[in-house]
């Protein structure tokens, strides 16, 4: 077994990105993700070809990412909720030009300037594409510092594989907490990038990276083609963890730190004789629809445990085609639900099922 090191979540993201071959980081300070930038500022100048640049704004940072992505090199930025709103125009361009890049969102409470405590209220923004136009990001939601590292590494591979932006959707807790991490990350996958801007060297036609398409028939075609790709991703890349689901009657849906709290509540409910289980989406887009569809035929009801006013609950209802009741157990504004609150929701749901 690989040796483990004690790391902060934000630092684990940064180190895993470097291990994935990312040599270009552009960011702008914002709590609670600044450690990613600080770590990159320290490490990048010591690595051959490493670039750390603090941009003048989140907007500039994402456009620098766009520039590097167009050259075919691995690149990332990180921010927190308000900063992701600013980056969203750029993310739309990156998606519209079919470029690989990683965007990290260590979420905080909103809307507006909100607060600096952990939140999951950017779920819609992340899974519905954040900026303008029809597009998706592959969205990965870590629930441990280990996953902050391993999913970051995976996100770079997926971005290159499908030529599209990917996102790590973490939260302030995941960013700030420390846990032991194995940095045994596996293999960096490499893909041919004939579309990249590398200079024609007077040997080929010029490459153009562009999302402008004034002929609607053409633009429609590009959209349809992109969604064919998305269909394949939905088929092949959805990931989730199922916990005590074999005989579960009450199914919790929760991701990130909310899933850790929910796991404790499930264990406690089992001690009280209630057959509770948990499905933890690891990919938020594509949403693990099949796991929920399967559960919908077996359980009595679902509880969506979220640190928002209820956003993922819509995907749970869609995936289960509303076959069973879905209730919301939530905190918002930077608050984290307690295991007791989730347990209470399980007990309540269990009563409901007996009626």
């Amino acid at each position, binding site marked *: 077994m690989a040796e483990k090191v004690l790391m902060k979540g934000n630092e684990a993201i940064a180190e895993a990105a470097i291990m994935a071959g990312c040599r*270009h980081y*552009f960011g702008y300070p914002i709590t609670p993700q600044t450690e990613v930038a600080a770590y990159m500022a320290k490490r990048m100048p010591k690595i051959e070809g490493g*670039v750390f*640049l603090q*941009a*003048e*704004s989140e*907007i*500039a*940072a994402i*456009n*620098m*990412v*766009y*520039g*590097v*992505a*167009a*050259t075919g*090199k691995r*690149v990332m930025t990180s921010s927190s909720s308000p900063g992701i709103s600013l980056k969203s*125009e*750029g993310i739309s*361009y990156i998606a519209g*030009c079919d470029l690989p890049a990683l965007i990290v969102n260590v979420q905080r409470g909103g809307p507006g300037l909100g607060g600096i405590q952990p939140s999951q209220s950017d779920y819609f923004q992340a899974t519905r594409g954040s900026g303008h136009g029809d597009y998706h990001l592959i969205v990965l939601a870590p629930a441990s510092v280990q996953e902050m590292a391993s999913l970051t590494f995976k996100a770079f591979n997926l971005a290159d594989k499908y030529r599209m932006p990917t996102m790590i959707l973490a939260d302030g807790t995941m960013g700030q907490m420390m846990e032991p991490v194995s940095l045994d990350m596996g293999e960096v996958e490499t893909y041919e990038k004939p579309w990249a*801007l*590398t*200079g*024609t*060297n*007077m*040997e080929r036609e*010029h*490459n*153009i*990276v*562009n*999302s*402008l398409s004034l002929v609607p028939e053409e633009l429609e075609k590009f959209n349809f083609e992109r969604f064919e790709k998305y269909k394949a991703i939905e088929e092949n890349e959805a990931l989730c963890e199922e916990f005590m689901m074999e005989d579960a009657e009450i199914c919790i849906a929760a991701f990130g730190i909310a899933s850790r709290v929910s796991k404790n509540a499930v264990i406690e409910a089992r001690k009280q004789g209630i057959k509770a289980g948990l499905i933890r989406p690891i990919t938020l887009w594509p949403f693990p629809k099949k796991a929920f569809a399967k559960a919908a035929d077996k359980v009595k009801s679902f509880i969506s445990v979220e640190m928002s006013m209820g956003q993922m609950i819509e995907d749970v209802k869609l995936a289960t085609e509303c076959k069973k009741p879905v209730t919301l157990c939530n905190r918002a504004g930077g608050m984290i639900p307690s295991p007791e609150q989730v347990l209470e929701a399980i007990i309540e749901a269990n009563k409901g099922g007996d009626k």
Partner: protein
Amino acid sequence: MVVFDKPHALTDAPLHYCPGCTHGIIHRLVAEVMDELGIEGKSIGVAPVGCSVMAYNYFGCDMIQAAHGRAPAVATGIKRADPSKVVFTYQGDGDLAAIGTAETVHSAARRENITVIFVNNAIYGMTGGQMAPTTLPGQVTQTSPYGRDVSVAGYPVKVAELLSNVDGAAYIERVAVNNVKNINKAKKAIKKAFQNQIDGKGFSLVEVLSTCPTNWGVTPEKALTWLEENMMPYYPLGVYKDIYAEEETK
């Protein structure tokens, strides 16, 4: 025998610019410079949003289209990813001096080793002639129908003057393409801005006073006169900053 030919660095794509617009001249100058410096094969150009959005079709080098105002940030990313490439932006006044002011000033402040071709025609052309950051006081546009009232709309931004105060900027010159003499000067300035990058000298910007007969509502010929009589007094031509020339004279 001298044969007047199309520069290699210009593609065969027909330009979409309006009759009499001087974008075509400026495109040609950039392409001639690329040919003369032999850099087409290692150049990467960044097209803006505005009239020159489709510049990616016209230059033979690798090209990317940037979000409105963000071309210097995109160029920064490309240049940092591969410093051996020659990276330039081609931007209009709305793009560079309004929505993209921060990117312009900060790429200059970083002495980012890129070349910026800034086309100033005192109007938003692509969207049909609205007031630009460089629209002159009193100038009539679609969104200043009674003439630019500085008490309401504020004053034009003088980009060359502004950037000459930024420590990081290496070379800033304002030129015009209103007559042959000035076109030759403009080409010299553009060539220097590219040569600076090749020599690793850092942020070089050439502001080119340009015409927009369509949205100024005048003939191409009158537009040249309008540029001379109105723009040139407000935006004087000349070298505003050249840190290496300053060093040489010390």
